[in-house]
């Protein structure tokens, strides 16, 4: 493919968030100079000013993300297709990347809304937060359209570095520092592994672009295979697939919850999408070996994620292991590797976004007084105090568990159908068996919320931005539970078809 003229329109989503990041950064400086200039400003005034600035920044970053999402959706509807880069294609804009861009944008947008009241509640309302979040989003936009190992690596680092900082954003909290340090160190190792794998792949095939690798890969060979394994390992780290998941519980627990929500949905989406593109483009005839490798990763993730989640007493930690388990479910789709399975994976990621953001939003809605209320006991008797919050939490958890009547079930159902179709019966049985285990821990929260007496007495109110997020997530989960493939309101959009179009990037 020839290097094309730089197509600005194609890069619009990336541009919007990148510019948004810079603007929020500058805006914070300008606004706080105006608010804090001069001696003798009392702390109360400072706090109020800071809160105001936070709201302005949140709006600015929302605007940037909405523009980016709008551009991505527009490109998706146009069927935009272009590849560009210096000399050879580095980024590929197509249905998959625009779909993933919109999805990641949605995750980022909801995370921004989650942060509006959460950051002041934890007294960490600093302006860099939004800039970092937007930068990381920009990195993911690069990642999902990467068709070359170089752009993949660039995207991955741009994604990760801001998140390392975000994970440690609660400076005063030791656990947050620990999370950041741990994530950074292990992330660095993962990056090194990835780079090493890339080097091996380049050595074996003489190419860094995915399609080039697929041509050079034809002979197979130990060098290429080990390079492949290392690249998969590096990416598996980002999406927390066992055995590369060890960072997950500590980081999920230690990071501020809005950051946890952000990385739980967006990094996972970006990581899985780029892994999907890499596998499909670089290994068009995915051999038995790769399928077995992915299947083993899937099985381990489901088993370890679900079993470890059972013994957790901290909700965020439990959700971290549940994230590992869900990564395992998604890997079942990867092991199947049919177009149907890719559709199911994308639909799963879409649904997963709503349930995960929803769950973390409930945890956020409980936070107050500079502390998180995230142990299981903190949820005791919540139903008598804040019935609506308990009800939506139950809905999200049932959806994560994959109980029928929720979108989570539909997502799992499509995965199961695709996997059975591909003959992965063993993996399906593991999926089903570990899902039974998962009922056990997903059920704990509704049980304590509804069936136990209230122990603590936080009288926090759910803020309006949180209500919006919760309502949106709950509505989406109920809607897609019944209309994943239907269009009752005549919008012309059927969710599964959209995912199918995005998955159909190979034609």
């Amino acid at each position, binding site marked *: 493919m020839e290097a094309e003229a730089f197509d600005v329109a194609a890069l619009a989503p990336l541009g919007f968030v990148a510019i948004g990041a810079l603007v929020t950064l500058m805006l914070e400086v300008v606004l706080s100079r105006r608010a804090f200039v001069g001696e003798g400003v009392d702390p109360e005034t400072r706090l109020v000013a800071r809160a105001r600035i936070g709201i302005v920044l949140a709006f600015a970053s929302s605007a940037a993300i909405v523009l980016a999402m709008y551009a991505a959706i527009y490109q998706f509807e146009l069927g935009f297709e272009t590849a560009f880069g210096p000399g050879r294609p580095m980024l590929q804009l197509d249905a998959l990347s625009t779909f993933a861009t919109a999805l990641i944008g949605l995750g980022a947008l909801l995370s921004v809304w989650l942060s509006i009241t959460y950051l002041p509640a934890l007294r960490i309302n600093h302006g860099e937060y939004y800039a970092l979040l937007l930068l990381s989003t920009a990195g993911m936009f690069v990642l999902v359209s990467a068709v070359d190992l170089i752009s993949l690596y660039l995207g991955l680092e741009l994604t990760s570095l801001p998140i390392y900082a975000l994970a440690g954003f609660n400076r005063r909290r030791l656990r947050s520092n620990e999370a950041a340090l741990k994530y950074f160190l292990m992330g660095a190792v993962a990056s090194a592994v990835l780079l090493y794998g890339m080097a091996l792949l380049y050595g074996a095939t003489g190419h860094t672009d995915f399609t080039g690798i697929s041509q050079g890969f034809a002979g197979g060979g130990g060098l290429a295979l080990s390079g492949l394994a290392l690249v998969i390992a590096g990416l598996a780290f980002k999406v927390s697939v066992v055995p590369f998941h060890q960072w997950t519980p500590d980081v999920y627990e230690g990071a501020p919850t809005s950051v946890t929500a952000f990385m739980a949905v967006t990094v996972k989406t970006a990581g899985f999408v780029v892994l999907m593109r890499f596998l499909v483009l670089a290994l068009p005839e995915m051999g038995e070996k790769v399928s077995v490798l992915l299947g083993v990763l899937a099985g381990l993730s489901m088993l370890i994620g679900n079993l470890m989640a059972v013994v957790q007493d901290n909700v965020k930690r439990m959700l971290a292991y549940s994230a590992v388990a869900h990564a395992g479910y998604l890997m079942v789709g990867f092991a199947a590797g049919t177009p149907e399975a890719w559709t199911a994976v994308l639909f799963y990621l879409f649904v997963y976004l709503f349930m995960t953001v929803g769950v973390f939003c409930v945890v956020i809605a409980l936070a107050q007084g500079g502390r998180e209320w995230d142990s299981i006991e903190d949820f005791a008797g919540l139903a008598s105090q804040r019935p609506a919050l308990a009800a939506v939490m139950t809905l999200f958890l049932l959806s994560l568990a994959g109980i*029928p009547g929720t979108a989570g079930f539909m997502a799992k159902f499509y995965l*199961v159908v695709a996997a059975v179709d591909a003959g992965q*019966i063993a993996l*399906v049985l593991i999926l*089903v068996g570990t*899902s039974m285990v998962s*009922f*056990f821990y997903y059920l704990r929260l*509704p049980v304590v919320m509804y069936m136990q007496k209230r122990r603590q007495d936080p009288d926090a109110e759910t803020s309006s931005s949180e209500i919006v997020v919760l309502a949106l997530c709950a509505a989406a989960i109920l809607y897609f539970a019944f209309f994943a493939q239907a269009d009752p309101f005549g919008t012309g959009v059927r969710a599964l078809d959209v995912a199918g179009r995005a998955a159909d990037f190979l034609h």
Partner: protein
Amino acid sequence: MLGPYVDAYLISWVVFLPLASGLLLLVANSVAGFLLRSNGLPKVVWQVIAMSSTSLTFVASLFGLWGRFDPEETGYQLVERVAWLPDYGIHYFVGVDGISLVLVLLTSFLMPVVLLASWNEIDRWSRSYLFFMLALETAMLGTFVSLNLFQFYVLWEVMMIPMLFIIGIWGGPRRIYAATKFFLFTVSGSLLMLVALVIVYRMNFEQGGALNFDLVRFVGHAPVPGVPLLDTVIPATTESGAPWWQTQLWLFGAFALAFGIKVPMVPFHTWLPDAHVEAPTGGSVILAGVLLKMGAYGFLRFALPLFPDAALAWAPWMTGLALVGIVYGSLVAMVQRDVKKLVAYSSIAHLGFVMLGVFALNLQGVTGAVLQMVNHGLATGALFVLVGFIYARRRTREIADFGGLARPMPVFAALLGFVVMASIGLPGLGGFVGEFLILLGSFGADPWAAVIATTGVVLAAAYMLWMYRRVVFGPLDKPENRGLIDLDLRERVAVGLLALPIVWIGVNPSPLLRRIEPSVSILLQEMELRRSHDEIPSAFEARSQELP
């Protein structure tokens, strides 16, 4: 004005009416509070709404479904079919035949009675309680009328959620344990069924059939406009080369696990006593009256017609488990000190009878099983209601705490006596007809099974009458029991309503049998037609010849 819509979607109206009024309950409080500027309305308003909607549901199912059901016509009637996820062959597809009709009627009848019986029982979050009951009713009715495997699975699982909360929030001291156990047992058991469903679906597609979850396209049965009958090619061999009947064995096993847990059949029964004892009266009645029937119904509607060869091969094992259930359930019931637990174990024994009838796989046995499901729902429901009444008065259910209740509570004693008789299966009451048919069918299939089962009848009489004697007769030696007040009008009406159909079925079972029998006979014919493997073990030759 609504006439045509009601006509065309009769079943949907019946199914969704409870849920609609339940949702109304959820929003009505805030609306009323806003309009009247008050702090919400009193509990009785919600109860009246729930009562009237469930009663309306019953009336609709009586006149709409029972009334319009044509017993002469075989197959599904009042069918509705709307595309839901058409690419996957998933439709909203409902209809009734004789078997589901009587169970729908049982469900819609029990619900208002239960609400009446537990009128004063719930004092906390009563609006939520009513919502869960109404949602539960919709899920149960929907499960009985589902003709699409996927839709059936969804409703089957959804049904557990309201029950989980009913037991867990309004139950007794060990409610959390009981609710969790109930939920984990029943929901986990069903997951393998989902896998089996998907495998059947894929196999059918690979053999050249359509992508399809509609039951009639797998197993035949009545013609439905626009739905090709049996367009499926039932595979002679599966992909892996195993004959279809061998694959059936596994698939049937997965279904049997899901249904067997729900029945419950013996190794999987341990959730039942806990759930029953801890549940509030309303929960117990619905659990025993309707939820336990789901398992047996699932066998009849799905497992048997989908996997006829496997059903025959598994029949001796299932019969064996049923017999174990009958004898074990009865023996354990005999030593119970808690009345509610006694009734719970008696349920295991009675459901053992039902399963015995189902796996007799002949006309009398299966018909008797369906009839016995209805009888058990009514009689055991009434027992739980009565136990709930004395528990409300004495806050205990220990048999030893009672004695001589006939004197302070003569009406209670009389009604309990009647219900005990019904539960034992006294001739002239419903239970007798069902048990008799089951034993008849079972004798035809395997005389020894019938002989063993008969001991269950004797044991049932023993533990029920013994309990009755210790509670109602004997000296009135506990001072707390002297001042007990007899049943009031509401309580009498509730039990009386349950007693009516018990007598009616006992005296004149033919209206029910006339509707059940043709459906059962079609079911057995289809099983026979779709058998792919002739060399079933010789022990079952007799049984297959008996098929009409």
